[in-house]
């Protein structure tokens, strides 16, 4: 297999692009909390990971960078030494790094695990049922443990600009796309990142009985979905995450998923089973963080990075301190 090249050589390049795209929000220029602050909260008291050395990974988009930063600081608060490997481009690359041991922990979404890593093409209804199925299968087949899970999920959605004129203004639900297509197929254009287009797109179209012709489907970096749909070029509709703050800041309207196609994919801290065996306290840490990471919290944290330009580290520190996990 020649898969080593894309895994090894390109993450850096692509992560660089992603950093540019996301406005360099996660640049590590901002100093994190002091050792006193880190040891001043409940994590230092309740979770003991001293002596552990763990590499933390994440994907390249804002939410993942924030989760990565939270995990880094939380592990440090528990006394572990950390290696920062956040910002890897794409699920496949960060997962490969986890399996090979270059990354020890990262937050993954149940749906991604179910379809991409476990190769399933059916869906499990219900967010908790899906999570349990993924955790069970992944443990059994790949020795990967899913800890947590968080109380927020990542949910795909389709959005358009809010201030459009004409027929598109009438499209409020995904079912409305049917009549919109029927009137004039050539005007329906769609922007998506590779992962969504590869995985959910075909099934979504089947579920709603619509077909975007290949020439009207545009593939771009995930962060540019928002920008490109906001300027209506090259597309009128785009893939978004419901927890992404740019849905609000760029004034996008999320189409109602009236046939319940998209399941919420709960996020969880994934790691190799041997890592949990060696450091069982990781379970407590993941459960503690997961309990506090709700949908609203995640939207807010993402917004602090994407809208207010704070660094992922600063946002992570704010989150941990606010909940008393570290000292203020």
């Amino acid at each position, binding site marked *: *297999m*020649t*898969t080593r090249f*894309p*895994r090894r050589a*390109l993450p850096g*390049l*692509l992560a660089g*692009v992603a950093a*540019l*795209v996301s*406005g360099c929000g996660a640049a590590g220029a901002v100093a994190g909390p002091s050792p006193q602050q880190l040891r001043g909260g409940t994590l230092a008291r309740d979770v003991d990971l001293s002596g552990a050395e763990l590499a933390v990974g994440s994907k390249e988009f804002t939410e993942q960078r924030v989760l990565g930063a939270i995990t880094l600081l939380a592990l440090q608060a528990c006394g572990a030494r950390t290696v920062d490997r956040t910002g890897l*481009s*794409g699920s*496949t*690359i960060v997962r*490969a790094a986890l399996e090979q041991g270059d990354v020890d922990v990262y937050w993954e979404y149940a749906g991604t695990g179910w379809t991409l890593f476990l190769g399933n*093409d059916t869906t499990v209804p219900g967010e908790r049922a899906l999570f349990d199925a993924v955790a069970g299968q992944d443990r059994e087949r790949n020795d990967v443990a899913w800890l947590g899970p968080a109380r927020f999920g990542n949910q795909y959605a389709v959005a358009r600009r809010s201030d459009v004129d004409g027929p598109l203004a009438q499209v409020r639900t995904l079912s409305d796309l049917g009549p919109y297509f029927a009137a004039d197929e050539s005007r329906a254009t769609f*922007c998506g*990142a*590779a*992962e969504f*287009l*590869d*995985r959910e*797109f*075909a099934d979504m179209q089947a579920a709603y009985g619509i077909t975007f*012709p*290949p*020439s009207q489907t*545009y*593939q*771009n*970096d995930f962060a*540019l979905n928002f*920008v*490109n749909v*906001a*300027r209506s*070029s*090259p*597309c009128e509709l785009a893939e978004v995450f419901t927890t992404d703050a740019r849905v609000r800041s760029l004034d996008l309207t999320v189409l109602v998923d009236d046939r319940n196609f998209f399941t919420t994919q709960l996020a969880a801290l994934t790691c190799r089973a041997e890592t949990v065996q060696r450091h069982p306290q990781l379970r407590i840490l993941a459960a503690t963080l997961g309990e506090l990471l709700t949908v609203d919290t995640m939207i807010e944290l993402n917004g602090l990075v994407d809208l207010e330009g704070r660094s992922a580290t600063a946002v992570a520190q704010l989150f941990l301190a606010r909940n008393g996990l570290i000292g203020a």
Partner: protein
Amino acid sequence: MTVAATGPGAAAGAPADGTTRPARRWATLLARPLLVVAALTILYLVVSSRELDSIEARSLDAAYIASRTWQHIWLTAVVSVLVLVIAVPLGVLLTREATRRFAGPVLTVANISQAIPSIGLIVLFAVAFLALPVTVIAVLAFVLHGILPIVRNTIAGLDQVDRSVIEAARGMGMTRRGVLFSVELPLAVPVVLAGVRTTLTITTGTVALATFVGAGGLGDIISNGLASNRTLVLVTGSVLVAALALLIDWLAGLAEDVLHPKGL
């Protein structure tokens, strides 16, 4: 790949000085396209012999590949035409007596635009110019990037024209404009065309980066191969870009032969 000329007389790809170029035989002429066709046939056979999963099938679908190839050719054509229209006159202007002193500064700026990685340039534009459509952004970035080799070769080509020939023409009573169009430009054509050829080939490859802003092209197939970790998709996209670049370089080579002034 040919390299841009670095100074007068260093024009890459130009025919040997003063010798008459022999007419190419059909066999040499057809070697390149036959090679490309052979490569594409092998690729087709490999792809069609494999059982594709749904991710591979999306990127290797005939309609999908056709639409991306078309976008790629279209973008390359627009960028190339704009680069030609801007760069050749600019190069000529910078060798005229009155404006010659601007040559240094202009080349410095052009050098800087070339030093910025094109991937950075295009993504920067995409985020900075929110009001512009993505194809305009892509075209802008690639044009900025493609201008330098042609400006440089145009200047180099005009500079290497023998001063005594120009003075002789002037002495015969030709106007400045007449000297430019009847003497200088024809004598500079080989070097200018070498720059054009370089730019065309580079542009074909660089246009693959259009995918990062959503402007389409064959880069879509490559980036999807990377994102989904499907080697077959990655290889297909790369081979298609390479095939296109080889064909365009070949066409530019033909144009070079045709436009080459007789007797040089």
